[in-house]
């Protein structure tokens, strides 16, 4: 509730937003791309292994495209960012909490939600789709290159499969999911960080808890969006 009310305090969180977007989003692109590359490779190889025989091999394109855009791109990216971003936020805010920096901010009349929570949650919500978009593009491209070089598949065949069942919904479904993942991961990090108690041990526990809750939230939201949007 208080975080929602803090959304109106743009003058507080506005200047901090781009910094958080860079830290949580742009700086996370390499790890997301790294995961996407190997996801695409493995998907192409796995699908060719599954489709050998009865199913035409050009379905590799369809499977890689659909899976990367709708499921593995957003979820694996979300999981990776849950570890990186969620842990980062929980550790940072937890440290501030146990060292009473949060209390100091409040003493200086800063709203902790406007100053600490909203820019992080907004940045994660906005940047997770951006990172996921890169992951989607890289994952499909990696699967394409793998199919051409390691499988007996040509580019027209791969594209035929890729385009065969493509719908624009495949893309926006993944992006919407990833935005919700970003919000959930950031919220869990903020909640567990601001709720940490004790010393370094409390911060560590809060960080671990934030990552676990973030991953659980991603899986729950993934099922939720599948039920709602598909």
């Amino acid at each position: 509730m208080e975080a929602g009310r803090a959304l109106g305090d743009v003058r507080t969180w506005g200047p901090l937003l781009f910094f958080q977007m860079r830290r949580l989003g742009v700086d996370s692109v390499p790890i997301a791309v790294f995961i996407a590359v190997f996801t695409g490779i493995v998907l192409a190889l796995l699908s060719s292994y599954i489709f050998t025989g009865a199913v035409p091999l050009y379905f590799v394109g369809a499977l890689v495209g659909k899976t990367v855009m709708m499921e593995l791109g957003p979820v694996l990216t979300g999981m990776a960012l849950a570890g990186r971003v969620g842990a980062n936020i929980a550790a940072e805010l937890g440290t501030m909490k146990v060292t009473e920096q949060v209390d100091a901010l409040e003493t200086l009349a800063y709203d902790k939600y406007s100053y600490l929570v909203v820019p992080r949650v907004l940045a994660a919500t906005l940047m997770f789709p951006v990172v996921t978009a890169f992951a989607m593009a890289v994952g499909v491209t990696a699967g394409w290159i793998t199919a051409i070089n390691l499988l007996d598949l040509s580019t027209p065949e791969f594209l035929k499969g890729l385009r065969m069942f493509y719908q624009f919904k495949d893309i926006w479904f993944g992006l919407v999911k990833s935005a919700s993942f970003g919000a959930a991961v950031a919220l869990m990090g903020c909640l567990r960080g601001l709720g940490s108690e004790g010393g370094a041990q409390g911060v560590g526990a809060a960080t671990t808890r934030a990552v676990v809750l973030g991953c659980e939230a991603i899986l729950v939201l993934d099922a939720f969006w599948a039920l709602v949007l598909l």
Partner: protein
Amino acid sequence: MRRSNEFAVGLAVILALALVIGGALWLSETEINQKSAKYTARFRDIGGLSVGAPVTLRGVKVGRVEQIRLAPNEWVETDFSIDRDTHLPEKPAVIASSASLFGEWAANIVPLEPLPDDPILRGMLTEAARPAGGVWPGATLPDIGQLTAQASRIAGDIADVTQRIRGAFDTTALRELRQSVKDLAAISDRLVVFANQQTNRLDRVGQRVESSSNSIANVAQTFERASQQLDAATRDGQLKDIMDNGKASSADVRAAAADLRSVMAAARSNQASLVRVIQSADSLMQKIQSGQGTIGLLATDSTLYRETTLTMRQFRELLTDIQAHPRKYLKVSVF
């Protein structure tokens, strides 16, 4: 630092947007500069056709399905984007059909005329071809699932029939069937023996029939030749001449018969005198033979014959001498 953050974030967002928008357009094969034209077809049922499905012309992909919507009067209208360079049939129609065993469907553009042989397809296209403001007629072929369901029903029917046959052919029926087969084999053996016995007779009858047939053929040939000759004679007028001659001869014969009848009548009337003449001639001939009278003597005595012969010889000699020496016997003097 703040500028750096804004630049990095802005760059990332722009790149992501470009990737998303460009990728979506590329994957959906959307053309910004509108190289394709839009057409609409209507179907009663589109089967498994979906947005993005390929549109083919003679097996070559020329476009894609853009939109599918329900239309009034229980129609389904489908929009296609087709390359502008494509030469479409004069009266196009669209047949939606399954493109593979894996649920892919395609819209195939075909010429409406001539209509396909399949009566169901023909009926669907004819119904959809009724005036609809430039909308192409469409029809749908049954998909693999429907065909499989139909095959399943047929298999079920066959199973029922098999079950009934199995019920009908119980042990007793099988025993009777075996006995019937044995009886049939015995009858067959008897028929073979009978056939062997009758074969020689049939051969003879056949030979006779063949010779009779040859004779009839010869007669027919002869008759044909006679017919040809008769035809030729008739054609040349010879038969007419023969008939005319026959008619004239008949008239002559009739006239001769009439003369003969008159001669016979005369002879009958002079029969008595003729008998007498004959009797007289007979007695005369008897007298001559017996050497009575002058003629009898002439006929029976050779002296006269020899003297006559001598006289004739002397006469010829005389004539020869006259011819050789005419002045000896003839003397002509004028003065």
